[in-house]
Every structure is written in C-alpha cells, then in structure tokens.
C-alpha cells in the first residue's frame, strides 16, 4: 500500500479519499471472491515490467532491416507483430502506418485513451490528457512543435483518431547514418513517441547523448 505523503504535516490524513476507495474496493472484491489477489500482482507486473515500447521498437527495427518482414507488417500487421509473440488485449486488430518524407502519421484517441498495449504498453499521461486529445486533430503541427518536431510544409500530416477497436502503430523513418547498425542497435533508436507519431526515431548521436 502507498506510504503516507512525506510532505504532509503530521496530522494530515494518511491516505487520500481516492486511496481509501481503492483499498476498500480491493478488499471487498477479494473477500467476495470476485478477484484473485495474486492475479492483481500478475497484471501489475505484466504492464509495469514486461509489456512496453521495447516490444514495438523490436518490430520497427525488424521492418527496417528485413524488407519481407516490412511487407508482411504493412499487409497483415496483427500476424506480423504476433511473430514476436506480441498479441492480445488492446492489440487484437492492428494497423501499421508508415511514415515517409511525404506523409507523417500520428495517433490519438480523442474520446478516451485507446493505445496498442502489446507493442507500446500502457499510454503515458499526456496521451490520455485533455491538451493532447483536444488539440492534435485541429493543430497537429503546433502539437508536433511542442514535441520538438518541425516538418517541412511539403509533408502531409495525417492524424489517426482511434475511435474503434483498431489499434495503430506508426512505423517511423529509419534515421540517416544507421547503415552499419544491427537490428538490436536500431531498436535502441526507436522511441515510444516515434511510434505514436509525436516524435522521430533518434539518430545514433541522439541515442547515446
């Protein structure tokens, strides 16, 4: 359970109302046999330590080095991603969007927080927050600038609003100066934001900085 907030004065409440509600709910559901306490630990461990954007980075790096894999990934994304064992919840029906010098894709869920869990893990707070959800569809280039990305006016920006159960993964462009890198080193250049479309893949210099 959460420790008392050290910044609070000693007579402040030890737990917030929200913390108390969650604790009450957990004990009720366990006592009534509606959830298994050990299952909760497995769920937390899975998404805190096992499933995350390193999965997606491996997929992207494979697509960069293996043209046949890239073709499969764009043609039948769910099956190609499943070759790595990344399947299931919140990634059942995948679409992969390839970024090129002509087209830059980026992904949002304006209505809630839809995100491809098997390849990216759980979404960051900003992705689920009102500023990103409200703004990216109406001013994508201003949003990109806040992430430090300035695209040439000749590049078309496509914003994909995940309104259904289809989940989107952006395939970023392979950075220049990476011809000698192997697949594992390339995966180290693929950031989470590059696979959402709010960033670009790192150059080798940026990755080691």
């Amino acid at each position, binding site marked *: *359970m*959460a420790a008392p907030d050290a910044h609070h004065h000693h007579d402040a409440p030890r737990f917030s109302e*929200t*913390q108390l*509600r*969650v*604790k*009450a*709910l*957990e004990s*009720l*559901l366990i006592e*009534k*046999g*509606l*959830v*298994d306490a*050990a*299952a*909760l630990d*497995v*769920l*937390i461990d*899975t*998404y*805190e330590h096992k499933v995350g954007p390193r999965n997606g980075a491996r997929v992207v790096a494979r697509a960069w080095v293996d043209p046949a894999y890239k073709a499969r990934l764009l043609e039948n994304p769910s099956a190609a991603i499943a070759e790595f*064992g990344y*399947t*299931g*919840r*919140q990634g*059942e*029906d995948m*679409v992969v969007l390839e970024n090129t010098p002509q087209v830059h894709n980026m992904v949002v869920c*304006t*209505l*809630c*927080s839809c995100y491809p869990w098997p390849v990216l893990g759980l979404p*960051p*707070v*900003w992705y689920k*927050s*009102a*500023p990103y959800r*409200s*703004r990216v*569809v*109406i*001013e*994508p280039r201003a949003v990109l600038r806040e*992430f430090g990305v300035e695209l040439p*006016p000749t590049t*078309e*920006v*496509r*914003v*994909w*609003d995940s309104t*259904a*159960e289809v989940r989107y993964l952006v395939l970023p462009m392979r950075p220049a100066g990476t011809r000698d890198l192997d697949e594992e080193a390339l995966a180290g250049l693929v950031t989470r934001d590059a696979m959402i479309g709010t960033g670009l893949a790192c150059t080798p210099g940026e990755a080691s900085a």
Partner: protein
Amino acid sequence: MNGIHDLGGMHGFGPIAPEPDEPVFHAEWERRCFALTLAAGFLGRWNIDMSRFAREGMDPGHYLTSSYYEHWLYGLEVLLHEQGLLSAAELESGVPRASADGELRALPADRVEATLLAGGSARLTDAVVAKFQVGERVLVRNLHPHGHTRMPRYLRWRYGIVDRDHGVFVFPDTHAAGRGNKPQHLYSVRFEGGELWGPQGGGRDAVYADLWDDYLEAA
C-alpha cells in the same frame, strides 16, 4: 452522449506536458486501480463499451479535474454497483454485507497471462454487406444519441472519403447498452483539415477516424 470526454477540437486546455522518464504508474493506488479494473472485467459481466460509457457518466467538472485512473475507479464502482456485485452500503463502508453470486469465479493468477495474450477481438465473422466502398464520399450523420457512441462531435455532418474497409465489427452504440453486437462494416474515413476546421485546417493535413455503417450516409 455529448459528453465532456469528447474533446477533439476544443480549445483552452493549454500545453501538452510530457514527463521525462515517466513511470508506468504514479502511485500504488493507480497500480491497484488498474489491476482491479482488468480483474473485475474478467468476470465477464460487462464489455469494453459498457466500461467506456460508465466513465463517460462522470460529472463533467469532475472528469476534467481528476486523473485518468480516477476515471477508471469511478467507472469500476458504477459497473460493480449496476451489476449488483457490490451494494451502495458495501461501497460506502468497505465491509462485505452479502456473499457474492456463487456462479462468478475470479480468474486465477495462473490464467492471467494466457487471457491477456488471447485478447478478445471485436471483429465478427458475420456475412454483412458493406454499405460503402473504398474511395466513396460519405457524410457523417448528424446524430446526438444520449447513449454511448464512438462518433466524435467534430466529425458530425462532415464529408469524408472511405480510405479502407476494416471488415465487420461489433457496433459500440448497441453493445454498450446490452442490445447486442449489431454486426456491421467499420471503415477508416479520411477528412481533409479544411473540411473540419475551415481556414484553420492546414492545407495538406487530414484526420482519419474509424466509423461504422450506422454513422454514415452516402454523399
């Protein structure tokens, strides 16, 4: 419903604030809330559209001033109460008053991984004819249902072009209300920035959204 969750195109929320090296969870209660929501979902008493609709029922002011997992906590309490799994007195006191429905079994820890990896696709095998073809111009219907819908307000009464046909999927509006899957085609529809936002739309930019047959009409 025309709820506060439907944020696309609104102004006034300020800058985006990415957090460097952001942790997956920011507090222990967030971990527990996340896991409880998934574990209770494994009981099979509600579907994802019902979950979303439960969160959308939050008071709008509270929705905007509370954190993401507070939305989940609110939704989970509503669903457990609506389904009769926890009474108001139990939620209030934290003390169990009645034994649970004997038919319900918690998913054991050793089946969690396989359940997550299997997932549950919303794709259906029903043989339903597509109402629209790729390349066809469509108009998003001007509907304002009180129930759950995945038709964002900023797209209503706007013209787009069908970019791809995803196939036949569960229809969320009926699914959220417990009125069945209503199998129908789901499309990715392209909307030009200028069509959605007028002169502010940016000449080269576009929005794509996933929309079902029932949201669209021929244009």
